[in-house]
């Protein structure tokens, strides 16, 4: 079931409301007619005579027939107007690359690969951690401070091809090193017993992973999707489908399709392929994680 804040849910409720009304009219009418006008309840001699080979007397009522043409037409006109907005929102309001957080999605048989076009930082402290761990990365320095001076922490970092390790003893520590911001920077903070207390990953523009993508919460996400071939097989159609956000768009070889959405809740959601793409179509899945940003809170 898609999230409450999507346009889908609002529209779905409107359509369900009118569906139930229309359905109720038809069914009540039908059951009434079937029960009230059964054989034996009406004098058949008053009805038109049906004889083989004779076209029976016609029955019509122009006003009635126009009524059940025009009233549904009004309803349909109303529904068209209601849905016009979603048409614009979902397909006609594509943000520019500058406004949105742009992710390139490359669909292959049977994998989703993602590439960031701007850096994103994913940070997570282990559950129940009693003191905060803050990581500051600036040109040439990784600085770490923890909220408690009593604990000794070990910091491991890697930034291909460089990597290193240093300790924090009095609540603060840093290392001076040249950081290549074109590469992924990973920092792991461990306590004295070797448990991971905090993890930090900065995905640089141009990097990415297969089957997993992080996006910021509260910001418009723009997916630019292409389909690529693997081996000798031709590239095929796929469709990016994220049930939680109720969005879907085909991925077409030789064409860049676009999907955009503004997530308002953090969490990890499944992405599936909705356009049949061959043998392992059902297992072509990925995960999208919405990480909290200053625009939108959430529990993370």
């Amino acid at each position, binding site marked *: 079931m898609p999230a409450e804040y999507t346009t889908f849910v609002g*529209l779905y409720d409107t359509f369900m409301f009118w569906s139930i009304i229309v359905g109720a009219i038809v069914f009540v009418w039908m059951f009434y007619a079937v029960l009230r006008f059964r054989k034996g309840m009406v004098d058949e001699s008053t009805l038109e005579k049906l004889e083989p*080979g004779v076209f029976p007397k016609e029955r019509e009522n122009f006003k009635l*027939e126009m009524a059940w043409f025009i009233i549904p037409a009004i309803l349909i006109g109303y529904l068209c107007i209601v849905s016009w907005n979603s048409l614009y929102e979902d397909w006609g309001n594509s943000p520019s690359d500058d406004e949105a957080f742009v992710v390139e999605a490359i669909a292959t048989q049977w994998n989703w690969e993602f590439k960031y076009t701007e850096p994103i930082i994913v940070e997570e402290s282990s559950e129940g951690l009693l003191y905060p761990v803050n990581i500051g990365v600036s040109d040439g320095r990784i600085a770490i401070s923890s909220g408690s001076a009593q604990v000794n922490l070990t910091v491991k970092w890697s930034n291909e091809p460089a990597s290193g390790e240093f300790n924090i003893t009095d609540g603060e520590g840093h290392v001076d090193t040249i950081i290549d911001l074109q590469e992924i920077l990973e920092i792991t903070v461990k306590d004295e017993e070797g448990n991971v207390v905090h993890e930090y990953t900065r995905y640089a523009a141009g990097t990415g992973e297969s089957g997993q993508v992080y996006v910021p919460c509260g910001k418009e996400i723009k997916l630019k999707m292409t389909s690529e071939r693997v081996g000798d097989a031709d590239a095929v159609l796929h469709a990016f489908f994220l049930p939680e956000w109720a969005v879907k768009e085909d991925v077409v070889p030789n064409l860049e399709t676009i999907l955009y959405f503004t997530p308002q809740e953090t969490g990890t959601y499944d992405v599936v392929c909705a356009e049949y793409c061959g043998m392992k179509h*059902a297992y072509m899945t990925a995960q999208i994680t919405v990480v909290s940003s200053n625009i939108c809170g959430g529990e993370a």
Partner: protein
Amino acid sequence: MLLSKTRISGRAVFLLAIIGIALIATPQFTAEKGGIDSRADDGCYCHTASDATSVTIIGLPDSFNASTEYNLTISVVNDEIIGDANQGGFRLTVNQGTIVYDDAKIQTLDGGLTHTAEGNDQRSWDMVWTSPADDTKVVEFKVWGNAVNGDVSPQGDAFAGTSYDVAGVNAGPIQEVVESKRAMVVLLSVVLLVISLMTLAALYVFYLRNPDGFSMANFGQWLKGWMTTTDHKGVGLLYLNFGLLFFLVGGVLALLFRIQLAIPMNDFLTEQEYNSFFTLHGTTMVFLAAMPMIAGFANYIVPLQIGAQDLAFPRVNALGFWLLPPAAFMLFAGIFSGQAADITWVMYPPYSTSTGGADMSANAGTTLFVGGMILLGASSTLSGVNFITTFFTMRGHGVSWMKMPLFSWSILISMFMLFMSLPALIIGVLMMFLDRTIGSVFFATNVGDPILFQHLFWFFGHPEVYVVVIPAFGVVSEVLATSARRSIFGYKSMVYAMAGIGVVGFIVWGHHMLTSGMDPKLRFLMMAATMLVALPTGVKVFNWLATLLGGSLVMKTHTLWALGFLLTFTLGGISGMFFPVAGLDMHFHDTYFVVAHFHYVFVGGVVFGLFSAIYYWYPKWTGRLLNEKLGLLHFLTAFISYNAAFWPMHRLGIMGMPRRTHSYAVDSGYGDLNMTITIWAIIFGLSNLIMVVNMIYSQKKGQEAGPDPWGGWSIEWSTTSPPPTPSFAEIPIQKDANTEHHPDGFVTKLAKRFWAIGEKKGVKK
């Protein structure tokens, strides 16, 4: 005379030669894994098998621990054959775990490991096998080793093979593996069984007709009569039986993959089988079951209803039917090699035209499948020409356009739509066939346009939906009016509504492609047009309801089915309104909501309409009524189980379960609903057998029907049941109960004046 005969046969030989060459050039021959040149699982055929060689894997544990590394050595021993430089080779397949090896000596090929050119100089090879994480599995190692005598030719070499089963520590004792038959084999057996049963049934039916005069020679004659008939009633019954048979086939396919879907992560069917089965299920149900059934009713009933002796081109009609069995065979042919078409019934390229990538490309059976679609198109085109001509030229006296029974009108409109939309499909599948066989690039990704095919297919595909459902409208109009002992309410608006659906149906195809990457401006047009379809459909529903008011409804089985149609079709129609809307379609497209919707209109609409038609017109074919008690039982079981099976699919769609998935995750929450669906689907499938039993039983034992058992008014009820051949001794006259004079309207006056229409077929007062 002789000359012309020779010329024709010369041409035939020429054509056959072309077909032969085309077949040789067809990629069909590389269908088997690895091509016809390699026997991937038997070792290399170019060497000679020999007992003198022994091959062993050294270092295999008796039982493995999870995710542990084992050093393995494959060793080939043969003291008789000694080579110098080239000494030996091997091939190893392991079904689980991963293997790390030295790239210089060993390579991966055809799903297994083998030596490289450099690794040919030795008789033992080292590698590291990492066992799978699941230590309850049994891993199978198959190895072949070859002792080479060192000369370049394969002669004098000797190979041997062996296999090992290594169980995980928690696997329990290794059990003797019983070779289980794959579902494909089961299905094939079912097909063969059905064919034998049909032959037996035909024999039995023939025997019953005249037990004393039974002989095989007479049986041959009788069979020949059926196979060469051009009478519209004979061809109609052939169509009906063909359609019913393929309902069974399509139904069995559906139950097979419903079993696969019943529990999460099931492996009852492999992915290949699942994909092929739902492809064949869709194509079978639409093209081999529903369409032939409709063609059957059209053939049998329409000439009787409009007072024609037969169809305009009886031989073309028979040809149209006899194109179906070879087409069906072509569609299913891939199953016989385990490479059945797996391209879904919509056949979207580039997957369906992709050939080079083994498992990543469409199965080889696709080529013949697409060929079968071309044949189906040819068959339907012939029917279209035939029916349209019949309607325009062969109506009886008094059967003017606006005095034609609604079933005939529905067939006319549906045939028109079919005839107008088919070229798009035929062009599309022809281009696809060329892409697959001679390497054209209409839909190839680098130069062609895959979305073009979607447009072609849906320009046909959407009208096709109405092609099958409009005849059901016709049936229900006839059945409800007759059962309520009344004339239909708003006859004229019914005709206009059907024609309206026929026109609007051609401009809505894009709603199948709203998320295909099509231009958003087009999407709005398609959305608005699609919503318009609801208007004429609504008029029809309300007219049916108005027909019931004030009537005297007789509850026969066909009435129940028509009322059931009204219920389910309304639900299906309402759920159809959700799709053209952007915000809803973004979610619903290609989910189970779509599956639910089109089964509500296809089964609840078309099939229920056809069931109603079977109960309604069965007395006309056989002269006997179907058993009402069995009919009621059939209606109750089938109607309830049908709704119980398909209604939950809406919920699955809202939850986000996509269509065409082989399985789904355990924690997805789809499991319970899928299990429910499967159980009810099986009940639905079985319940329809009641109707088959009823049809067989009533043919002999049913109550005598007489010419007009239900009190219908159209001309077919004025002739005997079954009607004689030719159907009318002289062209019948349809009278008209509307005595009051209708002054001609403006358009009619103009038409009469300039085109003299209306006078020729003018109503005799």
